[in-house]
């Protein structure tokens, strides 16, 4: 593209939190109608860069121009009016308000009398969502829907503002392939309308699918800008991590290493489970030392099945046995006592306690075990926290830093550590590497594998088919609330699993 003047130009941006710099002389340029990938490790400063642009945070230094004119949004609403709309990394809509209200938040349609025109708004919301292939009851509270649907609503809302630039901070982290496809279609449509897009993602394949250029950030600095086509995946990773190419190549792309597995006796057995409206007939099993993948499309009932096993939702039918004994969990606390851990996909609402420190968030579930006579043994607590910070590389200024100040990926690592430090028998992971950068993802996958080799049973839900296929010893596929296929060992491959997800073919469970 030969446009001389970029649509957006951010130069020499500095931003510190306290005395810790998050952005150091960072820059970003986006041209009209261009899709710009913004990548970097967890905590590299991507979200901070975006927040400085849309007025959520104030920059310490630097200049921002839009269309050649100085840009000074002091709030995301103001940025929106100025033509830049943002899909935040953490869905920031209101869960107990209806889908319609969320879409029209801040620009409600009113009747001539000044009352809310609900009918018109509902029709508008339905029409908008239809463009995204989403068919839901727009009158229901947003919080009732899955994270993926909520994410799609956030995307639909942001796109419907007629912005000149749409920023998407990890929009695909909780989406399945189908929704990702829909999103890409949307991005292409935006592009055709000469709308610019900034696209943040840790999934490199996606970048190659939709982005024109890429800006790489590392430790608060902009370290590379290039057209997508001029950079191989390996080069991208090497630039991101700041390591040399050979080293990255040696490390390999996947971290679920092969090795001799000793799979033990059966740990968990679920038979003919029915949960709420979503799950009607699910059966699966997990053995000691085994990683079991649970695959399925959006709405197939994976999370619901997991929650029922964990005692977080009651099940109407079927049996759940742990080590041969029927479980009777009425709350997650019971499941935890029996040795089960569950890492939710919804980090913001079901994971972090925002106002508490990394230390307290990490040991939240472990607390009873860390105490004598109800008093917390703080030196042991600190020891465990420091060990995990080091082991999985949580980037924080100290264990006392509030978790809400961490970057999204680093929050995810703290939540994973919350369960890993419990030494559970069975770990249920719902999107365990959501929002985690490629380097750290490998670390975490390696850690999960190692724990499994030590006898831990893992039930892993992931919308990333690769993660399921490469990481699992066995895969169960759920479709419309029913278990439709089981794959074992050699039989696990992408086409087979995807076929079963979509059409329900495969070996019958």
């Amino acid at each position, binding site marked *: 593209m030969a446009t001389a003047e970029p649509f957006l130009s951010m130069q020499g941006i500095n931003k510190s939190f306290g005395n810790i710099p998050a952005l150091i002389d960072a820059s970003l340029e986006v041209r009209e109608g261009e899709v710009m990938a913004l990548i970097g490790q967890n905590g590299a400063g991507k979200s901070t860069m975006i927040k400085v642009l849309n007025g959520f945070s104030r920059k310490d230094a630097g200049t921002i121009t839009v269309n050649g004119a100085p840009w000074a949004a002091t709030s995301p609403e103001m940025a929106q009016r100025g033509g830049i709309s943002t899909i935040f990394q953490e869905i920031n809509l209101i869960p107990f308000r209806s889908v319609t209200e969320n879409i029209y938040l801040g620009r409600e349609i009113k009747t001539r009398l000044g009352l809310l025109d609900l009918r018109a708004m509902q029709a508008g919301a339905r029409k908008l969502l239809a463009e995204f292939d989403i068919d839901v009851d727009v009158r229901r509270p947003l919080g009732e829907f899955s994270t993926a649907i909520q994410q799609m609503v956030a995307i639909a809302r942001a796109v419907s503002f007629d912005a000149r630039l749409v920023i998407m901070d990890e929009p695909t982290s909780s989406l399945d392939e189908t929704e990702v496809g829909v999103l890409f279609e949307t991005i292409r449509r935006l592009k055709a309308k000469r709308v610019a897009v900034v696209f943040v993602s840790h999934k490199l394949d996606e970048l190659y699918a939709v982005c024109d250029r890429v800006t790489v950030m590392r430790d608060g600095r902009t370290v590379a800008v290039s057209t997508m086509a001029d950079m191989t995946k390996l080069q991208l990773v090497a630039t991101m*991590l700041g390591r040399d190419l050979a080293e990255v190549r040696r490390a390999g792309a996947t971290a679920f290493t092969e090795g001799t597995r000793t799979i033990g006796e059966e740990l968990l057995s679920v038979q003919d489970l029915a949960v709420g409206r979503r799950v009607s007939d699910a059966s699966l099993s997990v053995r000691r030392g085994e990683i079991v993948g649970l695959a399925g499309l959006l709405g197939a009932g994976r999370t619901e099945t997991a929650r029922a096993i964990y005692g977080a939702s009651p099940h109407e039918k079927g049996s759940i046995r742990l080590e041969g004994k029927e479980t009777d969990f009425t709350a997650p606390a019971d499941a935890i006592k029996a040795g089960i851990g569950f890492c939710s996909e919804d980090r913001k609402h079901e994971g972090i306690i925002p106002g*508490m420190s990394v230390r307290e968030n990490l040991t939240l579930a472990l*607390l009873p075990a860390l105490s004598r006579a109800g008093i917390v043994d703080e030196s042991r607590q600190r020891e465990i926290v420091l060990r995990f910070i080091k082991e999985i590389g949580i980037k924080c*200024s100290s264990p006392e830093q509030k978790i809400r100040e961490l970057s999204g990926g680093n929050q995810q690592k703290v939540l994973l550590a919350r369960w890993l430090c419990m030494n559970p028998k069975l770990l249920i992971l719902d999107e365990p590497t959501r929002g985690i950068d490629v380097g750290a993802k490998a670390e975490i996958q390696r850690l999960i594998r190692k724990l499994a080799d030590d006898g831990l049973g893992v039930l892993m839900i992931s919308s990333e088919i690769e993660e399921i296929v490469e990481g699992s010893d066995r895969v169960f596929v759920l479709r419309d609330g029913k278990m439709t296929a089981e794959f074992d060992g050699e039989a696990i491959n992408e086409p087979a699993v995807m076929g079963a997800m979509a059409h329900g073919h495969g070996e019958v469970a």
Partner: protein
Amino acid sequence: MSSTTQNAPSPVPGSVGSRPRGGIAAVLSRRHIGTIAALVALLIFNFIFTPHFATMQTLSVNLTQVCVIVIVGVGMTMVIATGGIDLSVGSIMAIAGAFAPQIFQGTLFPVPNLYTGIALAIVLSITVAGFFGLFNGWLVSSFRVQPIIATLILYIAGRGIAQVWTNGDLQVFKVPEFQQIAIGRVFGVPFQVWIMLALVLIAAWALQRTVFGRQVLAVGGNEQAAWLAGIPVRRVKRRVYVISGVCSGIAGLIVIAMNSAADANLIGMGIELDVIAAVAVGGTLLSGGRATIIGTLLGALIIQLVRYTLLANGVPDAAALVVKAGLIVLAVWLQRQDRA
């Protein structure tokens, strides 16, 4: 391990994991600076403008007034920390205050001697107060009634119960042995001040250092996440209301001991507002998740000093209410600033 950490801004050596703790300085940490500044300003103002301010008598009057607010405030802080609120504290004070004299005076059932009677009176009335707190907690935790509604029930009915219990009569008594709990002195300091200090220290410690305390804050910070992490959310909520009930019971006894009379119509009347104001001014987040008992103590001192200042300088009561309201607005505004 990986590059994720190697380039992280390296913290000051030795600062990782070391946490400011211990000592008065730490207890009155940064977050209290504003509150303390306000308190000091009020004191200076009074030293200059209020006649007879720097006397033992003024100190004593102010301290005894503040004790009741702080004691109730300890329970209230715990409740608010979980994201709840307890409007029934004044009524529970009235119940405990109306109940106790009937026991140590032997009108309810015969007691062998005065000391047994006093001991029974204290234990039983506080227990009863605790049970009323449990009722609140039960409504909130098991039936998911909104705290403000749930405790409104006892706010209205509790005082009624106390009035019916005493036929609406004023019970006057002269039992110095019992009244020691309020007016007796140890090292020259009224006994109720000791009770207050003990409760404040225990609660502040418990909130920081015990599993229960951390769970209280976790529930207030993100209830859903806390529940999924195995925290017994319902039990935690029940307990904070019981604690609030017990604190109210203690406060009720102190009030009647000070007055040497129990009037179910008046004990703890309107105290919930003073207490909530003290908690808010002290820096506890009204939406839950962040709480400070020491802050509540400071907040109560400020509220009391403001009231005293206005009174001693001849400002009418009605105007004093407006000032108090202004203080709460200011406190809430400051909290919002802090969060942004």
